C-alpha cells in the first residue's frame, strides 16, 4: 500500500468534511468519478456516529416514498460486499418486526401490504411461524413482520473498507484534522481553513459531519436545520451462535418520526446488541460533545424488552454500553444536495439510519457534482432523490 501523505494539499477537487460512513462513501464515489476528493475528519474515521451504529441494511419500514432509493441503497451494499470479498461481515440475516398489540398488528399489516405491492419479499408471520424462524423469541408476541432480504454490516469494518477503497481510488483522507471555518469569496464557498491554519481550496465543499454540520456552516451564514438526538445501545456477553438469528425490531408506528423503537441483534462475534427507546429525547448541542452515559430509563426499558422477548437471556451479562448522536432533520429525511452559497453541498441528517443510505447517497452526489450521469444513480432515482433530499425544502425555515 502506498504511504499516505502527511499534510493535506492546498487544493482539491472536492472537500468532504466528516469521515463517517457518509463522508467515506462520498469519498469513494467521488474518487471513482475522478473528482479528486479530499476527506477531512476531526478525529478518527468512523469513530463517532458511525461507530455507534447497528448498521442495518434494509428497506423494511422505511416508507414508500424512499422505497426504490432504499432498494438501490441495499443493492449497492450487497454488490460491494460481493466485489471486495465481504471484509465487513455483510450478513443478509433478515429482519423480524415483532408485534405486541393490536395497533402494532395494524401497522405491520400495512407495512407488509405496501412493501409487497412494490415487490418486496416481506410477509406476516403467525407466532408459530415466527417460532420456526427465531426459536429463542418466545415472548408474548401476536405475530411479526418478516423481511428476509434485510441485512447488517459490521459498522467499523465497513468504514475501514470504504476508507481503503476510497484511497485506492485516489481519494486523500486525513484524520485528526479538524476544520475551523469555511472559506468564502464573492458569496461562493471556496474551501476550508483547518484548525491548524492551513487553507485548502476547492470548487466544491460537502458538509458530511452529521450533527456537527450545523456549527461548521453557521459562521458562513448557512443555517442547517439538524438537531442532535441521543441514541444508545447495550451489549451482552458472547452467546452461542444462533441465539438470535435475525435483526429483531419493533414494528414501527406508521408515520412516527420520533416514535420509540427496539432493535436486538447478535453480532458475528456472538455478542448481543440490544436497545429499546420508549421516547427519544433531544440532547441539546452540548450533549453531543460530551462522552455521555446511557440514561437509566433506557437501560431498564432495553433490559425489560430483551427479557420479555427472549426470556432465556434473563441471565445475560452486560458487557458494554455506548451513546451516540444522530442528526435529525425536521422531516426525518436526509439533506443531500446543494446549499444556498455556490460551492457548498451537504449530505447529513441520518435520523438514525444513515448506514443503509450511505453508498446510495455517495453515488447520488457524485453524479450531481460531476454532472456525469454515469457516476451517479439511474435517472429515475436521481429525480426521486432530488425530490426527497433537496436541502432547499427547508430554505423557508433556514431564512
Amino acid at each position, binding site marked *: *500500500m502506498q504511504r499516505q501523505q502527511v499534510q493535506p494539499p492546498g487544493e482539491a477537487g472536492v472537500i468532504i468534511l466528516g469521515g463517517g460512513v457518509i463522508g467515506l462513501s462520498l469519498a469513494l464515489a467521488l474518487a471513482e468519478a475522478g473528482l479528486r476528493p479530499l476527506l477531512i475528519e476531526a478525529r478518527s474515521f468512523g469513530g463517532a456516529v458511525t461507530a455507534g451504529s447497528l448498521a442495518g441494511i434494509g428497506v423494511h419500514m422505511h416508507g414508500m416514498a424512499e422505497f426504490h432509493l432504499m432498494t438501490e441503497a441495499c443493492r449497492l451494499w450487497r454488490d460491494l460486499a460481493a466485489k471486495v470479498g465481504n471484509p465487513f461481515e455483510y450478513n443478509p440475516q433478515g429482519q423480524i418486526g415483532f408485534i405486541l398489540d393490536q395497533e402494532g398488528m395494524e401497522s405491520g399489516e400495512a407495512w407488509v401490504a405496501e412493501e409487497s405491492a412494490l415487490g418486496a419479499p416481506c410477509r406476516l408471520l403467525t407466532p408459530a411461524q415466527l417460532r420456526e424462524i427465531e426459536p429463542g423469541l418466545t415472548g408474548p408476541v401476536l405475530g411479526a413482520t418478516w423481511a428476509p432480504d434485510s441485512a447488517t454490516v459490521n459498522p467499523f469494518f465497513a468504514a475501514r473498507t470504504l476508507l481503503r477503497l476510497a484511497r485506492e481510488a485516489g481519494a486523500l483522507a486525513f484524520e*485528526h484534522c479538524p476544520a475551523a471555518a469555511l472559506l468564502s469569496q464573492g458569496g461562493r464557498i471556496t474551501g476550508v481553513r483547518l484548525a491548524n491554519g492551513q487553507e485548502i481550496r476547492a470548487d466544491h465543499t460537502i458538509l458530511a459531519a452529521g450533527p456537527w454540520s450545523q456549527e461548521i456552516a453557521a459562521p458562513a451564514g448557512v443555517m442547517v436545520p439538524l438537531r442532535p438526538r441521543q441514541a444508545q445501545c447495550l451489549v451482552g456477553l458472547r452467546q452461542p451462535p444462533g441465539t438470535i438469528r435475525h435483526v429483531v425490531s419493533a414494528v414501527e408506528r406508521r408515520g412516527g418520526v420520533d416514535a420509540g423503537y427496539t432493535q436486538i441483534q447478535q453480532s458475528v462475534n456472538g455478542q448481543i446488541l440490544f436497545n429499546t427507546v420508549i421516547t427519544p429525547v433531544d440532547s441539546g448541542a452540548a450533549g453531543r460533545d460530551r462522552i455521555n452515559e446511557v440514561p437509566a430509563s433506557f437501560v431498564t426499558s432495553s433490559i425489560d424488552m430483551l*427479557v420479555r422477548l427472549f426470556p432465556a437471556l434473563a*441471565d445475560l451479562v452486560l*458487557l*458494554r454500553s455506548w451513546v451516540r448522536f444522530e442528526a435529525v432533520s425536521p422531516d426525518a429525511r436526509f439533506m443531500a444536495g446543494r446549499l444556498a452559497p455556490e460551492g457548498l453541498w451537504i449530505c447529513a441528517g441520518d435520523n438514525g439510519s444513515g448506514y443503509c443510505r450511505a453508498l446510495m447517497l455517495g453515488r447520488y452526489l457524485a453524479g450531481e457534482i460531476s454532472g456525469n450521469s454515469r457516476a451517479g444513480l439511474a435517472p429515475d432515482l436521481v429525480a426521486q432523490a432530488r425530490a426527497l433530499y433537496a436541502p432547499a425544502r427547508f430554505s423557508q425555515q433556514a431564512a
Partner: protein
Amino acid sequence: MSEPQTHFRTDEGAVAQILDCDIAIVGAGPAGLAAGEAAAGTGARVILLDTFAAPGGQYSMQPTQGDSPFTDTPAVRLAREATARLAARGVQILTRAEVFHAAKRQDGSFRLAVSQQGAARVIRAGAVIAATGAMERPLPFPGWTLPGVIGAGAAQRLLKTGTGSLGPQGKTVLAGSGPFLFAVAQTFAKAGAPLDHLVEMRRPGVREALGLFLAHPSRLPEALRLMADLKASRARRHSGHMVTRALGTTCLEAVEIAPLGPDGQPGMAAARVLDGVGTLAIGYGFQPVVDLTTQLGADHGHDPALGGFYCQTGADGGTSLAGLYAAGETCGLGGANPARLSGRIAGLSAARGLGFAAAPDETAIKALRRARDFAARLAALWPAPQRLPLSLPPDELICRCEDVRVTDIRAAIQDGAREAMAVKLWTRAGMGPCQGRICGAGLSAVLEEAGVTAIAAGYNRAHLPLRPTPIGIVRAAMASGEWDI
C-alpha cells in the same frame, strides 16, 4: 407501539438496596483502609467497598486457609487490624462488592451502582475516594496465552490465598522486570513452594542501589530481607535475560530465555530452553486501575514511570472533579507506603470538603513526598519496557478476549487507525470481557512501533458497566430512581 413497553418489568421484586454515606471509598487496599480510618475519625459516615472477599488489596491480601504461613505476616496483620478499627468506628465494609457504574449528580453528590454476590446496591455519597489500586501491565510475547503462563501477581495471590502451591506439575519460572519479582520470590519462599528460575531483565548495579539507600536508609532492612529470601528460595537467577518464548501445545511445557544485548534486544544466538516448566509467572510491572475515575470524567495524565495513564490529583488528593478524590496507585504506581499516606490525606480532605472538622495532616503530606521520591528512584532502577521487547510473530495474540493477532493490529494501523479507540473499533481488540485492560499495554506498544505515542493513542474511557454485570443486577440498580438527576 411504544405504549405497552412501559407496562412490564423484568423482575419487579428486584430492587437495589440504597445505602447512604458521606464518603464512599472504592478499594480496601492500604490506600482505602487508610482513607477510611482518616475519614471516619472526623465523624463522617464511611462505606468502604472491595471486590475481594476480605479487605487488604493486593499488598495485604488475606489468606483463606487457617494453616497458611501468611496468617501473621506484618502486611496481613496490618489490614486485619485496620479492618477491626474501621468496624469499631462504624465504617460499613462491603466485600465482594464490585462497582459497575458511577455518576455525579447535579446536586454534587455521587451514586455508585454495586454488584454484591447476586444483589444490587446503590450507594449515595457526598464524596467518593477512588482507591482502586493497580493491575498487571502484561506485555505480549510468543506463547503468552498458553495455560500455565500467569501474571506474577497471580502467582502471589494463589500462593497467599490458596494452599501454598501453584498447582501445575513441573518447574516454576518467575520472570520479568522490577522489584516486585523479589516480593513474589519471597512469597514462594514463605509458602514453601519451589521456585526454580528467576529471569530478570535488569539487575541494578551496586552503585545505583547504594544511591537509593543512601537517600532512603530506612528502606534498607526490607531490601536486605528480600535479597536474603531470594537467596533462600534457591532459584537460579538469570540476570540480564528475558523470556523470549513460552513453549507448549495445549499448555506450557518449556520456556525459552535469552540474554539481553547492549541494545536491549535479546541475543537469540545465546538463547536456551528451560525444559519441564509447569508455571511461568511473568510481570513487567503494573498499571493504575482507572476505570472508575475515567468514567466519572476526572483528568488523567500519562507517565511511564507511574505505570501509564493515572488519575491526576492535587496535594489534597482531589481530582479535577469536585468531590472525587483518588489515593494509592490509582494516582500512579508507588507501592504500599505512598498508598497509605495518600489514602490518609484523601480521607481527611474528602471529610473536610463535606464540612467535617479535619485539619490537613502536614506530617503525612511531607512523608508522602518522601515515599514517592523513594518509589520514583526505585522505579528508575527498573524502567518498565514500553515497547515490545522483541518482535512478535504475526500470529501472536495481542487481545486474548477476542483472539486478535498482532498482524491484525498492524494492518488496522496501516489502514489509518491512529488511536487506541480506532484500533479497537477496527480489530475488536479490547471489545471482550476485559474491556482492553489486559491488551492495553500491548496495543499501545504496537501503536508505538508505528510512531503513535501512548499519549496520542489515548485511553478508552470506561462506561457502564465498569465490569461485566448480570442484567438483572444492572436493572435493579438503574431502576432505583437515583440516576439521571
